[in-house]
């Protein structure tokens, strides 16, 4: 279904071997050892952080890798270490991320359908502009945006973070869906049209359901990127009551010394939890999603 996966080879078959090389058992073992070693080196810091967060504060730097005493005190202390509880920051982050997901799904899929399927003058130009804006650094627009948003009183509100998503400004996702929709057979639209479907009907009844994988990819990436976003909330959210999790972590870091590393680690890890969760549940869409846009533009 995905463009990249369409070729002769089943993408996830574990037996695909390029060049038909038959590796000896020894070579295979060496390869596995290399890969396992690399995996461990890469993930070790995160695992260390996790284990440290489960140790009593005074043990973090003194005892070995494995906790001698297991405790959740860092999580309990960290949760209420700041002026507001982390529950509030998580709620703020979740609200912003959910709104961003809805905004991107609606606005990007509509634009993508129009570009991929409808005939109108200027279609190529529109696609060209979409591609250009993917490359555009946010910094070129951030100052005037800030001036305008602050003059209408939107500093310390979530609007500056959410509104752009409803206006399809994440051109990357428009492009991703254009690519996906183009790969769907045209005959479907033609048939629907003969049955009396208008453009909106074709979009809602035919294309949208078939675009589910691309929608999932968009939703997950939007969620992760919004959840991790630091620059925009740093600019707009000064009031601690409006802080998202990354901003809260940053001020937590500023306010603690070595003394409460345990709770800082604990809260930092909780911040990753939704991302890792999404990753585990939906990695197919993530991995294939970037492969689709990436492999052949």
């Amino acid at each position, binding site marked *: 279904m995905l463009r990249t996966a369409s070729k002769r080879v089943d993408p996830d078959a574990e037996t695909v071997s390029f060049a038909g090389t038959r590796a000896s058992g020894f070579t295979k073992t060496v390869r596995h050892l290399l890969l396992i070693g690399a995996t461990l080196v890469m993930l070790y810091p995160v695992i260390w952080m996790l284990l440290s967060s489960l140790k009593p504060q005074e043990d973090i730097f003194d005892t070995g890798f494995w906790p001698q005493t297991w405790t959740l005190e860092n999580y309990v202390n960290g949760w209420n270490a700041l002026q507001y509880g982390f529950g509030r920051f998580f709620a703020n982050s979740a609200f912003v991320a959910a709104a961003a997901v809805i905004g991107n799904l609606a606005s990007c899929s509509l634009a993508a359908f129009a570009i991929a399927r409808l005939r109108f003058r200027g279609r190529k130009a529109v696609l060209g502009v979409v591609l250009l804006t993917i490359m555009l650094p946010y910094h070129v627009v951030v100052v005037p945006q800030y001036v305008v948003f602050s003059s209408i009183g939107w500093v310390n509100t979530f609007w500056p973070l959410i509104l752009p998503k409803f206006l399809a400004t994440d051109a990357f996702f428009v492009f991703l869906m254009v690519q996906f929709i183009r790969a769907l057979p045209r005959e479907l639209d033609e048939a629907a049209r003969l049955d009396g479907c208008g453009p909106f009907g074709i979009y809602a009844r035919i294309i949208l359901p078939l675009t589910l994988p691309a929608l999932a990819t968009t939703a997950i990436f939007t969620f992760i990127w919004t959840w991790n976003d630091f*620059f925009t909330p740093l600019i707009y959210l000064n009031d601690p009551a409006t802080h998202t999790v990354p901003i809260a972590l940053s001020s937590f870091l500023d306010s603690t010394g070595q003394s409460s590393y345990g709770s800082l680690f604990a809260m930092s*890890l909780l911040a990753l939890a939704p991302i890792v969760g999404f990753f585990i549940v939906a990695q197919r869409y993530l991995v294939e999603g970037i492969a689709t846009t990436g492999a052949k533009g």
Partner: protein
Amino acid sequence: MATRTRPTRGRSEYARKEARAAWLMLTPWLLGLALITAIPMVASLFLSFTSYPLLAAPTWVGLDNYLKLADDPRFLAALGVTFRYVFISVPLQLSFALALALLLNRGLRGMRFYRSAFYLPSLLGASVTIAILWRQVFGKDGIFNDVLALVGIEGMSWIGNPSTALSTLIVLNVWTFGSPMVIFLAGLRQIPREYYEAAAVDGAGRFSRLVRITLPLLTPVVFFNVILQFIHAFQAFTPSYIISGGTGGPVDSTLFYTLYLYQRGFTQFQMGYASAMAWVLLLIICVFTAVNFLGSRYWVFYADEK
């Protein structure tokens, strides 16, 4: 993409309806393009020629901001730091990505597991959490020093030392090689097997198959990754902010371009100066991308071009 429909009156009516629907569907995008992108872009170009302390009205200063940039030691430091970061970390990151993609493409058992394990860091790399972790890993009491101690090397604070602080950020970017790796893997899958079979018949060894088939056919994907990761790296912000506590220190050794822009624009509220910086950044990215596209003629190979 011509569709076969008879040219009747109903057809042209439908065409009109279709065009109307298209622009209706593009309305949110058009609004965003105008209000969030195009107008702010023009405004920021204008502001870059003004002195604008936010609370007072902007006053026209001509090229002053740009001239000041050329003499601003911190700006030049930021430029140097960013260039080093980009031009060291991205080639390293892409080399790791390519090497592991080639290794994983050999049909190993457990390939999906490895792919996931390597991919995960690229989702986490931009987060505040990982930056906090990095501060710890490469700090005085960090686990990097613990590892060094095992082989008898006495560590130091890699974050606190101006000559090594940037390297820790480079390592962080290399750590996120998973996403270009997945793109490489997808590209490798598109290489038709027949090529390898034919080459094997001709007696080509593993190395010559890699150099003569795999790498040339993969160049479009390499090109794509180069463009994407370079643009991405130029705009990195979070790790430098968190690791240096927002200062870019020690001695501006981690002062990323975007961090300096943030300091000028959003802590000192010199909006004109920050706008000029933004346009210089855009210019750098454009020049870089253009050079890449021009250069691509000489090394990117498209199989479908005859």
